[in-house]
């Protein structure tokens, strides 16, 4: 009997046979995550529905030395959930129950397969919500959010996933149950909870999460401001912050993104603008009223040629709709697009956009930019056509150079999407060999066989040296 048949038989002893998936056709939806350029057919897909079943799957895989790739909703954007050809995809989709909401203590205990937005929906009746809101929030799971340390448009004020999670239960590669964090705001010892956030499924399989809930702000209002140049928009953002105002959300789009978004959803963005800012203030009605006028005045003094303050909830939603649908909007003007996720110090924005424009010319590929201006997270969208032979490879190379540029100006290769398979090469630009060796030390402490999500997140050392040499050559040629 093949290993596949043997394992499938073993899994079917304790998992509903319908959810031990062996045939290629039924496995198809699991072959990639949201980054569909990276595909792989797994050996097996399993969907357990009890924690004990998860533990037994992991133990069996450990015994047989078979890789395990944990998976939530598969909305990730770094191929972090891409299957391993000889491995088992462990889908946590059936763990979709909100176990408990304690409105007085403002915490929710949830299973990992619960969708991000479902937590806020369930908490709404208590006047509470879960703050991190990645743009995939209607579909992505909280387990995946923890694994990637997901962000969203409200990070500057409300933090990332790591700031909003109090406790994580996980099962280690050896099948042991581990609690990270606890009932209080801190626990003694190394901060393993911080380590778990953003660990991309390499350290354990998450089985339960306790998240913080915040009071729904009494009011939210947004100011839109259009500028004739990127530099002025960037300066305006700095001026808001320097004036002691921390907006709930602060987003910027460049001219390509503005045009695409406006054509798509007619939010009223001026298409002649070189840069557009959306600045949301939230809090008590008094606070919002006080700050919204100040922000509008700051934008005006930084040469915004058009300013619009939302006068109703409908108008606020419309102004956001353009930004939130910027990705699909760009999707309409190009057969394919590739979304990057670098971060930069905000002051470097104009320089980075100029350099990127030069690279865009050089590669003959258009690029549109949306930018979480509050927290420096840049999402360049490179437009390409996958049906043109070699164009994706060219796009990848262009993307790699953008990330290198982000690191050069003091930023990093990924702000919220994670490394996965996609950016594993660029890890060598951001980190030296000693740091990467230390990462491997951490991995070994949790999973000495390297069974959980192998090939993701942390590169093999010898490939790092090769990549550094290669990228130096490319830069020299350019």
């Amino acid at each position: 009997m093949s290993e596949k048949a043997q394992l499938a038989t073993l899994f079917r002893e304790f998992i509903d046979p319908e959810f031990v998936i062996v045939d290629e056709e039924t496995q198809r939806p699991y072959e990639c995550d949201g980054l569909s350029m990276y595909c792989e057919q797994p050996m097996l897909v399993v969907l357990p529905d009890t924690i004990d079943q998860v533990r037994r799957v992991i133990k069996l895989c450990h015994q047989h030395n078979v890789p395990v790739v944990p998976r939530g909703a598969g909305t990730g954007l770094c191929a972090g959930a891409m299957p391993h050809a000889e491995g088992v995809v462990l889908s946590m989709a059936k763990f979709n129950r909100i176990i408990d909401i304690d409105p007085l203590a403002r915490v929710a205990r949830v299973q990992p397969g619960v969708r991000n937005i479902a937590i806020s929906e369930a908490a709404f009746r208590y006047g509470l919500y879960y703050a991190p809101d990645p743009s995939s929030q209607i579909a992505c799971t909280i387990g995946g959010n923890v694994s990637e340390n997901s962000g969203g448009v409200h990070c500057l004020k409300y933090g990332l996933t790591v700031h909003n999670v109090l406790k994580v239960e996980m099962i280690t590669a050896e099948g042991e149950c581990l609690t990270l964090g606890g009932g209080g705001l801190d626990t003694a010892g190394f901060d393993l909870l911080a380590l778990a956030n953003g660990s991309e499924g390499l350290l354990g399989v998450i089985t339960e999460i306790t998240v913080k809930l915040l009071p729904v702000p009494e009011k939210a209002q947004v100011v839109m401001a259009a500028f004739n140049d990127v530099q002025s928009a960037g300066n305006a953002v700095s001026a808001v912050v320097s004036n002691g105002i921390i907006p709930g959300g602060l987003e910027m789009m460049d001219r390509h993104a503005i045009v695409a978004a406006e054509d798509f959803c007619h939010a009223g963005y001026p298409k002649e603008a070189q840069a557009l800012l959306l600045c949301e203030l939230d809090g008590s009605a008094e606070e919002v009223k006080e700050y919204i006028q100040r922000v509008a005045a700051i934008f005006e003094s930084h040469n915004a040629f058009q300013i619009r303050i939302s006068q109703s909830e409908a108008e606020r939603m419309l102004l956001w709709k353009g930004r939130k649908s910027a990705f699909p909007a760009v999707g309409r003007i190009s057969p394919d697009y590739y979304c990057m996720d670098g971060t930069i110090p905000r002051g470097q924005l104009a320089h980075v956009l100029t350099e990127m424009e030069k690279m865009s010319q050089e590669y003959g590929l258009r690029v549109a930019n949306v930018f979480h201006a509050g927290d420096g997270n840049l999402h360049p969208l490179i437009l390409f056509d996958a049906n043109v032979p070699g164009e994706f490879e060219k796009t990848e190379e262009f993307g790699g150079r953008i990330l290198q540029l982000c690191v050069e100006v003091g930023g990093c290769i990924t702000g919220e999407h994670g490394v996965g398979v996609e950016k594993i090469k660029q890890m060598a630009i951001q980190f030296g060999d000693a740091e990467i060796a230390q990462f491997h030390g951490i991995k070994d402490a949790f999973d000495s066989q390297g069974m959980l999500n192998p090939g993701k997140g942390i590169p093999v050392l010898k490939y790092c040296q090769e990549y550094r040499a290669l990228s130096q050559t490319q830069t020299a040629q350019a």
Partner: protein
Amino acid sequence: MPDISAKLVEQIRSASAEKRQLQIVGRGSKHFYGRTPVGEPLAVAEHEGVVNYHPAELVLTVRGGTSLAEIDGVLAEHGQTLPCELPRFNGDGTIGGSLACNISGPARPWLGSLRDLVLGTKIINGRGELLRFGGQVMKNVAGYDVSRMQAGAMGCLGVIAEVSLKVLPIPTAVTTVVAEIENHKEALTLVNRLSGRSNAISGACWWGGKQYIRFQGARSAVDKAAKEILKDRTGASLMKDGQQFWRDLRDQKLAFFEGLEPLWRFSVGSTADIPGCKHGIIDWGGAQHWIKGDYRFDDLAARILRGMGEVNLFRNRRGDEEVFHPMPAARQAIHKRLKASFDPDFVFNPGRLYSWL
């Protein structure tokens, strides 16, 4: 503002080669914390100074030995602050030591801890390698979060040589209301309800029949929040020297903290009612309780129901007993392996966190 990292690296390498143990010493303000320090002192306070500060980016990078007073001064010039209100026991402290101990002030539940503000670090591990993790930007998910893992590690993983932190504007308005509430359970319910409604709350401490509540942020929001409490509760009043109260609470200068009795700290869910807490202080809107007295560790740990939190012996230990909450075997095993990967020769702060680490 010297950079003495090369000297520190050298000292650590030779200690590791000669199997000598080191206790990391900053400005000595938290010497009492944890188990008894052993090993030769490794002085890091000299490794100090601001490396980078960009007020408009809200990012400050400082060397680990930089004093909290210096950081306060630099940030205040630009109307900014570290919102986590780091305690200054005996009036002193370094940023590296603060991160290693991860002790936060009264604003912790609403404005976060120092750990929450960390963006990146440089650490020197037990091999004497100077490593850089995280960065100087708000978001960074490349690699494991080694920087935040230093929070509470008590220096057992390495020397914190440099820290990049998110800073925030100093709030334009701060107001403290004090209400007479004899029953601590009633106070707990009040502050938990308030935390579920108001975004402006930034402090809630019950002590000796009084509930102190602080609001901060925009003037209009603060005034409104305070007014509501004053209207709802008879006997509530605005506190004139409110800021002094919160500073004294932060630095453990209130009369409650005097004396040499063992001081115990509970870190629990904000609705937990810990038996005996009415004789102590309930801070953090219910999430941190202070109790004094000669207790057995097990007895206090048993007071926390359903894994709702932890207890530790904060000050005035009697001997060399364990001071941090007992750790389950699975987590202990991970700790030992992590320690071995960062500090294979067990050079740093042996036994400071747990006797077995």
